């Protein structure tokens, strides 16, 4: 069993006692490609070198590189002030000073940590699946639980009429009738084209597809893989923060307009863009209801199947927002809140 200790201190891990069968490696946190985690079973952060924000950054970088590894923390001289915080972030073990210095790392201990990591990861998956399909029959739900993680086959292999899981990304301008009235038809069409030009690059790097468009409302399909929608969440948050600049410089509007965005995950029978009129799907209905009735201006609203894809280090920018039509919601905080200048 190979254990990697991320530390800034030289040889600090050498003082950790290990049982037979446990190989200890140490070095800087795997921020860079140069740190090789191949074969490593579990990663421990020395919290005297890496406080929680630094750990979050490393985990986020690993997530971007699509590396998933069980992780824990250790402290050699002094206990962490609030060890529970690490578990809330997804840690599967905590090695305090007495364990590090006196007892040491046993295979049994590591196995328990790894099984906790496996349990947490399974729990996360099943939680997503349960929340994803509240209206589906029990059989379908059970079928999904036992199936391996979904891999998108590519748009060329997607068959019309067959049902696939997708993330549905809805983006719209608030009060479009009012905007249209004040701008006039041709200027409104320009606005629609500009928005199309600006929104497409947010989803195209993850193979997103503009599926439906009506005036300045857009519905994109993104393949149902968490790493893809994580990237879209990040890009949409940037879009919200930059929206005043975009309004002024790209949309050439002289007064603020409201932007609304929502993401949901679910299954739908695929039809090509432009031929979606006959699609009957609970997920499509839900995302439209969510976007039009519940999502707030200036915030990104996520339904339960999407919340787990929020990048770990952006978690503090989201808050719980109650439920809507049976789904728990999470919303991003608002940039530029009034009365906070």
């Amino acid at each position, binding site marked *: 069993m190979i254990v990697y200790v991320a530390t800034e201190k030289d040889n600090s891990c050498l003082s950790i006692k290990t049982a037979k069968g446990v190989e200890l490696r140490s070095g*800087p946190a795997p*921020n*860079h490609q140069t740190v090789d985690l191949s074969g490593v079973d579990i990663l421990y952060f020395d919290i005297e070198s890496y406080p929680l924000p*630094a750990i979050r*950054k490393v985990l*986020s*970088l690993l997530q*971007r590189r699509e590396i998933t590894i069980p992780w824990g923390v250790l402290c050699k001289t002094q206990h962490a002030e609030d060890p529970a915080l690490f578990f809330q972030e997804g840690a599967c073990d905590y090695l305090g000073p007495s364990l590090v210095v006196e007892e040491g790392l046993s295979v049994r201990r590591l196995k328990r940590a790894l099984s906790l990591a496996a349990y947490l990861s399974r729990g996360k998956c099943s939680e997503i699946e349960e929340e994803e399909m509240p209206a589906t029959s029990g059989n379908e739900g059970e079928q999904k639980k036992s199936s391996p993680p979904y891999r998108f086959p590519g748009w060329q292999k997607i068959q019309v009429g067959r049902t696939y899981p997708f993330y549905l990304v809805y983006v719209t301008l608030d009060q479009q009738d009012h905007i249209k009235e004040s701008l006039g038809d041709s200027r409104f069409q320009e606005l629609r084209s500009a928005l199309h030009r600006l929104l497409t690059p947010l989803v195209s790097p993850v193979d997103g597809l503009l599926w439906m468009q009506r005036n300045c409302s857009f519905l994109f399909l993104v393949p149902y893989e968490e790493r893809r929608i994580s990237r879209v969440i*990040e890009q949409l*948050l*940037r879009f919200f*923060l*930059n929206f*005043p*600049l975009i*309004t*002024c*410089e790209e949309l050439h*509007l*002289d*007064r*603020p307009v409201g932007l609304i965005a929502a993401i949901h995950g679910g299954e739908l029978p695929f039809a090509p863009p432009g031929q979606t009129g006959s699609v009957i799907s609970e997920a499509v209905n839900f995302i439209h209801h969510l976007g039009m009735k519940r999502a707030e*201006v*200036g915030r990104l609203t996520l339904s339960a199947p999407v919340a787990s894809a929020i*990048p770990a*280090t*952006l978690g503090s*920018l989201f*808050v719980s927002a109650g439920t809507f039509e049976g789904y728990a919601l999470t919303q991003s*905080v*608002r*940039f*530029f*809140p*009034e*009365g*906070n*200048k």
Partner: protein
Amino acid sequence: MKIKSALASLSVRVLYESFNAEMLVRIGKLLIPGYDIHARSGIPENIPITAQTAASQLLKDVLVEGRYLQLIELLLRINREGFMGREYPVCYLRELLKGIAAEGYLYDSTSGLFMERGEGQITPHWGRLIEGEELQFVLFRLDIVQNSLIVRDNPKERVDQAYGELREIVHKAVYKRMGRVWAWEGDGAIGAFLFGNKHTAAVCAAMEVLHELFFYNRLSNPLDRPLQLRLAVHGGPLKYSFYSDELKRNEVIREIGEIEASCAKPDTLVVSENVFMDVDRIIQDLFGPLASWKGYKTRSYSVRVGESR
């Protein structure tokens, strides 16, 4: 600046078909202080100069002085506004602009100035400024907070990585708005804007840098602490120089340094009132109230998050 012979011939034609010799000498004096066409051409003062000869000589002289683009900018202004109360329609302007575009320059109708297209090499002087040329600039300055502590407490490769990524963020925000980054020193940078709506462009570039940093600190900062900046935007007349020591003698550069160091808090952009007045309203609304310090009137902006509308 060197131009192709076809463009040179067209330019001479534009000059002598649009103006008489006397007017061409006036144009020469506007571009080159103390311009004396007789001295330059060697034609004695008692011999009259034809418009065609004057046009050829003027073009030759402005090319030697590196003021060809300034000549065409002046022709465009005279065509638009007239000169001393009289109208002077300038012929073949469309062809002239086409020829200049083929040389790699674009005309910015907002500022009335040409600039390099920026598709290949991007120069700090937009391929057109000349030594001592005085124009109204909007400047942008940033300073890395606690630079020495960052350098002391982090391994060199991480500092290099973070500062390299910061440069990319700044260059992207500045170049896409037709601005230029003039200098990177150890803990900061200075940039300039001259074209388009330069006031809004400079302020938006600085805001974008703050926005990008907001995400950079959360997603990929390799340092042991958040990378924080103090930013300032200020404008005024500036005599351009290719030499940084000479450039720094400009009052406006001294002022922006003072504004940034004294008025901007970490993670904050401070904009002087003279720039702020010309910024689009939609951006102005995001700034705080007017503040004063040692005669500088400023407004500040920082990324804020919250729950309320």
